[in-house]
């Protein structure tokens, strides 16, 4: 081999670009030789002279140190070559991966020197380990995901499935590897899937996303959400299909359950409407007829019936029947109200109108009314309900006044953001809330010996308020007065 200058330069260049240096340990003279590149790798200046102990000290990582020490000893003792990947700490205190190759030379059964190569493989090694990490990550995702993952080959035969997919369908992965998607897809969903697959193949869609049905090994239908994408080679030919599948069976079941509850509710609502119809048409017309006939009798046989003791009772009974039906009708109407009739209403205007309509009683009974000072407060309400609620609260406050003092009613408003509350505070008889709180808003509950008590007003008021998305609160003390607070939805 010609040891020309050009050849030597080539060798040096090769060593430089391969980041590969040479070294030699002379065991007879106890000297060490490092080539320039070797010194470069160790991070020492080119005039650096080192001994064997120092050389070992560059391996600070204990595993690497153990490996190199053992391998070097084995080389010297047993004539064993070594080729190791080690972590080296340079003079500049930087950890790098190196490849150390050592070859012993024996003369007359004794090792006289060991020489070898020293290569900086840090960049390659770190890239490799990064890639390894990536691969492991991907693999972990694939294996441990609760999402079913299936990879089909280009002919849509199953190539690989994960545990999640196997569990979903009840097959083992070796069973699955012999199947195609036709084996477990619900027959009614097959055609749609084939069309989707074609589109995906031709690149018309980027992914095929669909809710469909699969057949479990046990024959049961499962509901799934599929996202299918295509993996192409560099010439854009499909090589694999990647399917990600989420099991929606539980969600589907609860949706079905919800649907059935909804049907029950609808059914009950319908029955309530029928009931409302019977009350408002049939019952009412019968009681109306009775009332009319009675009036006629009273007109026609006025003189004969004057002394009859049964007729006034008959009158009362029919009056009572009519009123009960009227109440029943109101109650039923509250629950069959149409939500669309909500309107933005000025509460003040309605309050004024209600006070106006009972102005005669207010005047007769000398009631002092304290009105809110606001001019306009908008609420969301159903006009007929609002009128009924206001009238009910105001007449109650007057009806149950105390005979011992002048009746005083304070009306005030409060804005709490979502709600507008209207407080009606009187100084009347009051209600024993400890005794009656539970029954206060019940049907046919009266708390005063008052001929006019129907026991229906508060019940209807509460129902009407609740039908409009609000609520009612009460505070009361016997012989001090009551405070009713009604919360309406804010109209702002």
């Amino acid at each position: 081999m010609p040891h020309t200058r050009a050849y030597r330069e080539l060798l040096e260049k090769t060593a430089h670009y391969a980041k590969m240096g040479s070294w030699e340990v002379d065991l007879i003279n106890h000297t060490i030789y490092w080539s320039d590149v070797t010194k470069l790798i160790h991070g020492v200046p080119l005039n650096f002279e080192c001994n064997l102990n120092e050389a070992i000290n560059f391996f600070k990582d204990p595993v690497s140190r153990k490996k190199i020490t053992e391998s070097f000893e084995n080389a010297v003792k047993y004539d064993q070559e070594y080729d190791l990947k080690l972590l080296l700490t340079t003079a500049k205190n930087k950890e790098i991966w190196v490849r150390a190759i050592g070859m012993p030379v024996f003369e007359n059964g004794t090792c006289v020197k060991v020489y070898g190569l020293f290569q900086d493989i840090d960049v390659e090694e770190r890239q490799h380990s990064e890639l390894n990490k990536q691969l492991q990550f991907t693999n972990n995702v694939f294996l441990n995901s609760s999402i079913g993952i299936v990879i089909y080959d280009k002919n849509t035969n199953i190539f690989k499935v994960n545990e999640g997919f196997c569990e979903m369908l009840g097959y083992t992965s070796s069973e699955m590897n012999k199947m195609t998607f036709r084996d477990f897809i619900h027959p009614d969903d097959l055609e749609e899937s084939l069309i989707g697959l074609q589109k995906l193949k031709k690149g018309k869609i980027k992914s095929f996303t669909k809710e469909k049905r699969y057949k479990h090994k046990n024959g049961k239908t499962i509901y799934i959400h599929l996202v299918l994408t295509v993996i192409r080679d560099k010439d854009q030919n499909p090589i694999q299909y990647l399917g990600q599948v989420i099991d929606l069976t539980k969600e589907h079941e609860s949706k079905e359950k919800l649907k059935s509850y909804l049907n029950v509710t609808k059914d009950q609502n319908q029955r309530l409407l029928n009931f409302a119809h019977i009350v408002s048409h049939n019952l009412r017309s019968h009681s109306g007829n009775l009332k009319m006939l009675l009036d006629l009798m009273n007109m026609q046989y006025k003189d004969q019936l004057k002394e009859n003791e049964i007729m006034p009772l008959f009158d009362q009974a029919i009056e009572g029947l009519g009123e009960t039906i009227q109440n029943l009708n109101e109650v039923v109407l509250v629950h069959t109200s149409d939500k669309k009739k909500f309107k933005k209403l000025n509460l003040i205007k309605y309050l004024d109108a209600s006070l106006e309509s009972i102005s005669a009683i207010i005047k007769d009974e000398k009631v002092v009314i304290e009105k809110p000072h606001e001019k306009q407060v908008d609420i969301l309400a159903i006009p007929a309900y609002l009128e009924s609620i206001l009238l009910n609260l105001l007449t109650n406050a007057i009806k149950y006044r105390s005979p011992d003092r002048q009746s005083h009613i304070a009306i005030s408003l409060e804005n709490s953001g979502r709600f507008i509350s209207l407080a009606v505070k009187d100084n009347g008889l009051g209600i024993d809330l400890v005794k009656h709180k539970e029954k206060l808003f019940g049907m046919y509950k009266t708390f005063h010996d008052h001929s006019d008590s129907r026991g229906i007003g508060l019940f209807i008021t509460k129902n009407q308020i609740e039908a409009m998305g609000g609520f009612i609160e009460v505070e009361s003390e016997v012989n001090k007065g009551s405070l009713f607070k009604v919360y309406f939805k804010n109209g702002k």
Partner: protein
Amino acid sequence: MENKINLACIIDDDPIFVFGTKKILEYSGYCDTFLVFKNGQEAYKNLRTLIQQKSVLPDLIFLDINMPIMDGWEFLEEIEKIDIPKQLKIFMVTSSETPADREKAKEFSVIKKYVVKPITLDVIKDIIKQIE
């Protein structure tokens, strides 16, 4: 009597209501001549003939909503299609207090008033006052 109605028409399938209404009108002395129809269709056919023949028409009509064959609403739709003389005053008299029915009644200009049963002497007096 000054307010006497010449002819009143009752369209209702309930014989008790018809009987009672007739009696109240008779006793009160407002009216003693009646046209009674059991449903909307019967009423429509007869009234149409009367209008076409320019015969004497009722001064007021009491119209029920719920009736077999043709109900009060259908009757109104049909009768509004023919050119009705202005004197035809229709009162919707029904047991229904449903807000929906009340609202619907407002859509027909021919309806003078929505009256909820029962009909009493006071109600009749109000009605008579209104058509004066």
